[in-house]
């Protein structure tokens, strides 16, 4: 395979954002589960809470930095995740062909997708909405519980809980499929590039409509 057969899928700004997001969110998920189930002795629970808070601050800073320093990517990501077509429904009907491929070793017809398939769009929406809710509710719960009405504090606690459960459950799927699609995994964590053939197979509409050759 030649150098020219690779295409840039994840620019450096996106990869740095994702490194910090992955590190902070995984930490938040693990410590959050510890705190929710009250799994540890008191000093360890206290440490878990402190780590949870620090990771939450890192996640917030990461999100703010990406929003302001890579606003074009935020707009593009938002536009792509919120753009739907009939193909998305058809994609969900076969779940992207992954169960058949993984469990039955069968290949089924999958409707053509853009840069993000329908499942990734759904995850993206959850990350955008759920992540925003988690950040905002987390700050209120940590720093300003008495700046809001009592009833609202309780509701914000519930929002924080449910949003985190949704994202944690999605995270397992995301991790599994991320590793399953090893080229994409390497691209996100190493140099941002994936083989052209891989992109043409999994994201034909992206390759056809959005990509242009440089140089």
């Amino acid at each position, binding site marked *: 395979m030649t150098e020219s057969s690779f295409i840039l899928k994840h620019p450096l700004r996106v990869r740095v954002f994702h490194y910090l997001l992955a590190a902070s969110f995984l930490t938040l998920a693990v410590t959050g589960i510890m705190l929710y189930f009250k799994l540890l002795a008191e000093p360890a*629970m206290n440490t878990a809470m402190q780590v949870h808070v620090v990771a939450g601050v890192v996640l917030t800073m990461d999100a703010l930095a990406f929003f302001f320093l890579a606003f074009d990517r935020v707009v593009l990501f938002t536009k792509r995740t919120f753009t739907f077509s009939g193909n998305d429904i058809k994609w969900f009907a076969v779940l992207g062909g992954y169960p058949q491929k993984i469990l039955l070793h069968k290949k089924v017809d999958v409707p053509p997708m853009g840069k993000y398939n329908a499942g990734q769009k759904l995850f993206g929406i959850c990350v955008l909405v759920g992540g925003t809710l988690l950040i905002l509710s987390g700050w209120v719960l940590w720093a300003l519980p008495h700046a809001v009405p009592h009833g609202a504090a309780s509701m914000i606690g519930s929002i924080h809980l449910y949003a985190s459960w949704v994202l944690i459950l999605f995270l397992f799927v995301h991790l599994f499929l991320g590793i399953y699609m090893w080229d994409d995994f390497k691209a996100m964590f190493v140099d941002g590039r994936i083989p052209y053939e891989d992109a043409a197979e999994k994201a034909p509409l992206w390759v056809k409509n959005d990509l242009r050759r440089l140089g």
Partner: protein
Amino acid sequence: MNQETKTYRKGEIPGIIAINARECKGCDACKRFCPTGAITGMFGTTHRVDVDRCISCGQCLINCPFGAPYETVDPVDEVAAKLADKHVTVVGIIAPAVRVAIGEPFGMPAGSLVTGKMYSAMKKAGFVILDNNFAADLTIMEEGTEFIQRARHALFGEKAEHGGGIGPLPQFTSCCPAWVRFVETNYPALIPNLSSAKSPQQMAGAVAKTYGAAQVFNVAPESVYTVGIMPCTAKKFEASRPEFQSAWHFTKEKGGSAPSAPYPDIDAVLTTRDLARLLKKMKINLAAENDAEGGTLFAEYTGAGTIFGNTGGVMEAALRTAWVVLTGTPLSKIEFTAVRGLKGVKSAAVTLRDRKYGKEVTVKVAVVHDIRANIRPIVEEVMAGRSPYHFIEVMNCPGGCINGGGQPVCDTGSSWIGRVLPSFAWS
């Protein structure tokens, strides 16, 4: 002594407040309101109440953003059963601060004064009214007279009229059960400085079961069931104190038909929240009631009793009494505005002429509320013998009883953000 606790006597309720582990987020908010550091548990962990340090004030309960603290004593069903028993005279003893808060759970604006509606709703429920303002008037006569006695003893060497000892100055008020327990558990050397007068609730209970039973209700003392209706969770603790069985002792000494086991002066205490639940359970909508009169001698009171619910109210009432007793002349202006307001520690000096000794006396008083923030410098000064004051009113809760731990929980948040911001998780 309770086996599991160190600071309670037999019969006393050890800890009115507990924390629901399922609801507690470990956010530490409650610790910022606890006057005694009784809430344990590190940030992020389930918090607990150390009952030996807890003074049952309930400030954690009304300020927890997640509603985790709760009351361990809920007498609503017991009171409902007594109200249904036609052989029992159930006396509702209504504290001053309840009437400006009980409207809230029935959809009325915060601060609505609903004395008449409350009388009506409670009579419909089966209560006989004993307005605690009546008992507050009794308290201030006792407390004010005691202060005069202590002052004359300190200044002029006057002896006790009936023998016995006379307490030292400064005299502290004793109406607030959280404050009394604070002294007992933190500064026991200052117990003699506390006024020996009972709180209005406890005077009311004893009066209802003695004079009330014989002269007003015309029933046997043991068939009177007294219910304190209070803005305060610590009043539940106060009612359980073993020294408050005066009516039983009195009846027994007078040869009346007292049962062998002592009965308490106050049988149950309902907080403002509890009363709202009771009325709702009985399908009585207080907001829809017409105004009614109290209907007995026990619903008569003065303005001095009414202001007991605010910080400074007891002191202002005491000063009015002291003025009249010492000078023998009525006040031209009854307001002592220097002791009003929400400043943490307020002080005033009142010069008056003691007609008995023919000398001018300057009485220096202080008013303290929110003891978490304000009391320690005052008591340390007294302990060191450097206090300039002769009489000090203390109420545990910020603002006084109107902001007690038994009041409706405010859904609109509070404004201590300025105190939170500097510390966050590492406080």
